[in-house]
């Protein structure tokens, strides 16, 4: 293509359906309408299903040095319970004595049950073309099993409460060469970057809309992306160093955003620009 088509133009958190009024007249409004139409047309066939199918196989396959499946992995609702599990994550797990999101928990199960080393389990957290990520596929399937389930993240344990409060602080943390925080783009309603609507993650409606539509198949990349990826790539564009997969900051921020989305039916894997 004349311009590089597969350029991984990173994105913004979620494409939102509620559109605000824009400063200029007809042209901008019709642009907004046409983009809504474009998004609508994408809904008809979501390649995320290809990841979901592979993820389900991976969950059930005997893998790793111990040659066991993940079917005894406890995602928070008891060993092997997948249905609705994602809608209650992140949560505190006493066996690991920390708050974990889905991806972190998967790594934990791959290590403790299947016998993978942490290095092997996290070797490819984000896929690129034929170098595919098992974690993305597993996440696609597991999250699809929460479709329609209302977000219900609890802050009961002290560490869950602490994660939420740390996540909130991290959300407002300004740094890097450009002084960006998550809040720079995500704390006002009705704003957009280029033509992408920016959810206001400090309000219930915005947090719900954004959080319940990840993971998502990103058409700009041709990849299924998880929430860990979403945070990782937001920080890249914030000009921060690289967010470590499953790090305390990543889980704390996820706790903050997931809790703010409580009450909304989970609706992913989605498809987005």
């Amino acid at each position, binding site marked *: 293509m004349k311009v590089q*088509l*597969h350029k991984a133009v990173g994105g913004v958190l979620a494409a939102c359906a509620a559109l605000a009024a824009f400063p200029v007249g007809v042209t901008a409004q019709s642009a907004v309408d046409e983009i809504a139409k474009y998004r609508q047309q994408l809904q008809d066939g979501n390649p995320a299903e290809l990841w979901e199918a592979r993820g389900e196989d991976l969950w059930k396959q005997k893998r790793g040095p111990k040659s066991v499946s993940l079917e005894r992995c406890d995602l928070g609702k008891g060993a092997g319970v997948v249905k609705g599990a994602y809608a209650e994550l992140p949560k505190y797990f006493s066996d690991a004595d920390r708050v974990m999101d889905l991806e972190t928990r998967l790594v934990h199960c791959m290590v403790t049950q299947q016998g993978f080393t942490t290095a092997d389990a996290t070797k490819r957290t984000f896929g690129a073309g034929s170098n595919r990520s098992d974690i993305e596929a597993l996440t696609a399937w597991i999250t699809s099993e929460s479709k329609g389930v209302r977000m219900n993240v609890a802050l009961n344990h002290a560490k869950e409460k602490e994660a939420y409060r740390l996540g909130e602080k991290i959300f407002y943390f300004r740094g890097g060469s450009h002084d960006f925080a998550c809040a720079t783009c995500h704390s006002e309603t009705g704003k957009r970057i280029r033509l992408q609507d920016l959810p206001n993650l400090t309000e219930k409606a915005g947090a719900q809309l954004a959080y319940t539509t990840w993971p998502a198949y990103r058409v700009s990349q041709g990849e299924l992306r998880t929430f860990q990826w979403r945070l990782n790539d937001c920080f890249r564009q914030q000009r921060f160093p690289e967010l470590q997969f499953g790090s305390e900051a990543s889980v704390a921020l996820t706790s903050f955003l997931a809790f703010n989305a409580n009450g909304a039916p989970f609706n992913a894997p989605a498809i987005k620009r």
Partner: protein
Amino acid sequence: MADPMRIRASEKGGIVNVKVLMSHEMETGQRKDGSGKIVPAHFIQSVTATHNGKTVLLAHWGPAVSKNPFLEFNFKGGQKGDKVQVTWTDNKGDKRTDEAAIS
């Protein structure tokens, strides 16, 4: 081996609607990788859909069809429970066939 396709076929009023998602890179042959080398073209060239052994669609594609292709079409004469079979073949000779029952 390539991943299975996702095929949905549903009949309404004598018309069968078929939606297919395929797992394929659809490399254009114009993209450069991280080290600046051209990634060779790799794309589905043909797709054929059959119903009861009869071809109901025959598509020829170039590399400008999007990655993980989506295809939708409609044909007459299928009954619920009949099989729709789809085969794709790419420019390296790889192929994949899957089928789905009409719902």
